């Protein structure tokens, strides 16, 4: 393609990427470096239906002047990144110096919002991603060997979890595992413990969230693998059969190597998706047991006083986290590309 043609061809995409990807990233980075001005407080009296009480309010005129002088707010540099709500540098350093054992150190870490949410996010990401790839692959292989007439119906039902809105899907599951719900009662009956509650135990809540995650994302892996299965070279498969390979050996030595690039693709997308886990935590009302970076952003913006800088900082940390998580896969793809070239 001529450079000129390429330029005009690529321009709309480049513009869209600039507006929808680059600009928001620049904006959150900028917001994370600035914090609001120091509030000018004045003592006053508030009156209402229940009488008057001495109170404090923000002096709007003085604050307005500060805002006009510096519209972005106070420059804080990396201060917000280092505070307790984020990387908690001071707290971690103190804990490192003062803890007597690894257990002590980790229990202090587990008490800090960023590390607490990372513990859940990483556990979730690294259990859900492999499990959903395996499940998706198993479904794809099973569906592929089905009778032609059955296939359509089975494919439709296998895709349902992905069609259902994540929030609705998690709410449905949430009520089913309630201690008075269908699954919750069944588990109580099976464990013979009427007080057993999935929602009251952190471990069981994590397992529920992970099961939900696999249930929700497996159809995506299934669709991709199913499409891939249609391209498996028939001659290789047939020669393997002639050589007396069992069905398992055919899958292990012919199908899986053929689908490897797709596995990389699914892993890439799902690592990114699962790292941003959010809807099930809201749907399951699970914030007492499990928090993620996305949940922290939502919570900072949802309180009665919005914390924009804190939310922006967590967003930047999320972007960095996704980049780190994807780097091995990206490096690998780059190497494959170079080898082929």
């Amino acid at each position: 393609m001529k450079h000129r043609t390429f330029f005009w061809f690529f321009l709309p995409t480049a513009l869209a990427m600039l507006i929808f990807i680059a600009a928001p990233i620049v904006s959150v980075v900028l917001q994370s470096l600035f914090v609001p001005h120091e509030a000018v407080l004045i003592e006053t009296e508030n009156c209402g239906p229940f009488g008057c009480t001495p109170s404090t309010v923000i002096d709007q005129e003085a604050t307005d002047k500060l805002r006009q002088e510096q519209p972005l707010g106070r420059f804080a540099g990396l201060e917000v990144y280092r505070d307790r709500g984020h990387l908690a540098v001071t707290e971690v350093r103190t804990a490192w110096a003062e803890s007597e054992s690894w257990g002590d150190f980790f229990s202090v870490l587990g008490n800090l919002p960023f590390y607490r949410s990372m513990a859940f996010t990483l556990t979730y990401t690294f259990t859900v991603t492999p499990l959903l790839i395996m499940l998706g692959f198993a479904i794809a292989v099973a569906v592929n060997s089905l009778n032609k007439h059955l296939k359509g119906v089975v494919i439709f039902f296998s895709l349902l979890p992905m069609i259902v809105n994540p929030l609705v899907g998690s709410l449905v599951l949430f009520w089913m595992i309630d201690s008075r719900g269908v699954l919750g009662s069944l588990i109580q009956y099976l464990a013979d413990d009427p007080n057993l509650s999935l929602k009251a135990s952190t471990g069981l809540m994590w397992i529920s969230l992970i099961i939900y995650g696999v249930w929700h994302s497996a159809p995506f892996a299934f669709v991709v693998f199913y499409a891939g299965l249609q391209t498996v070279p028939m001659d290789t498969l047939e020669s393997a059969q002639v050589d007396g390979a069992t069905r398992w050996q055919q899958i292990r030595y012919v199908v899986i190597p053929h689908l490897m690039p797709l596995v990389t693709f699914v892993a890439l997308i799902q690592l990114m998706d699962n790292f941003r886990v959010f809807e099930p935590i809201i749907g399951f009302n699970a914030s007492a047991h499990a928090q993620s970076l996305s949940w922290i952003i939502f919570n900072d913006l949802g309180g009665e006083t919005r914390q924009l800088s804190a939310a922006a900082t967590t967003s930047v940390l999320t972007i960095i986290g996704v980049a780190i998580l994807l780097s091995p896969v990206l490096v690998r793809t780059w190497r494959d590309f170079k080898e082929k070239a």
Partner: protein
Amino acid sequence: MYLKTTALAGALVLAAAGAASACEITGGRVSIIGNEFPAIQTVGAGAGECGGIEFNSNLTADHQKLNVAGMSGDPAEYTTAIIANSSIVALINEDVIQPLDDLVAQYGQDLRPNQLITIDGKVMAVAFMANAQHLVYRKDVLEQIGAEVPTSYEDMLAAAKMIRDQGIMDNPIGGAYAAGWNLAQEFNNMFLGYGGNHFKAGTAEPNVNSEAGVNALNMMKALSEYMNPDFLTHDSNATNAEYRAGNVALMNMWGSRAATLTTAEGVLQEVIDGHAIAGPMTVGGGATPASTLWWDGWTVAKNVSDADAEATFQAMMHGIRPAMLNDETSTLAVWLIDGYEPTPAAIGVFEAAQAGTIPYPMLPYMGLMHTALGNELADFMQGKESAEQALTDVEAAYVAAAKEKGFLN
């Protein structure tokens, strides 16, 4: 024939109501953002009856995520926000609402002085209802165990133990203890009941890690032993569902929800018959109830034209006019409107006001404290850490947030 008469009578009543509520405004835009519960829906619908205006209303539980953003523009998208004493703080902090003194002088003849919310000498909001959390209980169950109506949380625990020991209910206490806003609010109630102050006097320095704070947490833990094990996921809706299903006999519930508690579909007959309301409870021998007083009211946006501000004020005044009170609307809330006759459902809130319950603190940094409490107390309720550690965490989380927002250095 009977049907026809009824229909005719109904039509006449409607026509009469229509005539009585005539409200004509000469132009202007009225756009409401507010919470959704029956009393607020009534006020919003009332404002919408006015003719001659461009009317919009967005009543949603997510109102406080939308109101500041929706009022920051110029002109503001929302000309009025219906808020409570906690949520007005964010609007004042961001300076998006205007003083109403002139409009009150011009159009506010029907208002009673205690409806005017004055901050720093200026009227910033018009309150129309009061609210508080108080005891809701099953009188049939208390009769069965031969206990008096609890006036303190200690009595509540004793009654709960009897109910459980006699095998009447497994988890007789209900409470909106969902991690987040609800859990923090229950702590606020208990903390104030033990005589605590959230901040060191006159400053934004936190003061919850105190004897009152530890006592409050221990009492909450003791109560939770008698709750459904899923209590950390139960908000007011879920708690009410437990009560309606007959699984709960004693709970601390919002006045604005108590009146309609037994009118939902599928409530057990024994719950309807046994349903009763009392004032808020005290704790630890204190005289101040372990509860907070709330008002709900409306404001007018700063960034709107004078014509829109006037139209908004008039329409909202129409929404809370004394004539809107009737048998149906009177039960929905404890109205502050002139001519309101308290219904039996209002007794809880009235007793709360009479017993000297403290109003929810209207301070610029209270929202940050509430968020910090909501995030950090769940670990203690699950038995993962001590009360002192949980309160240390709350203060640390609050200080980090307050530094960022410029309230602390």
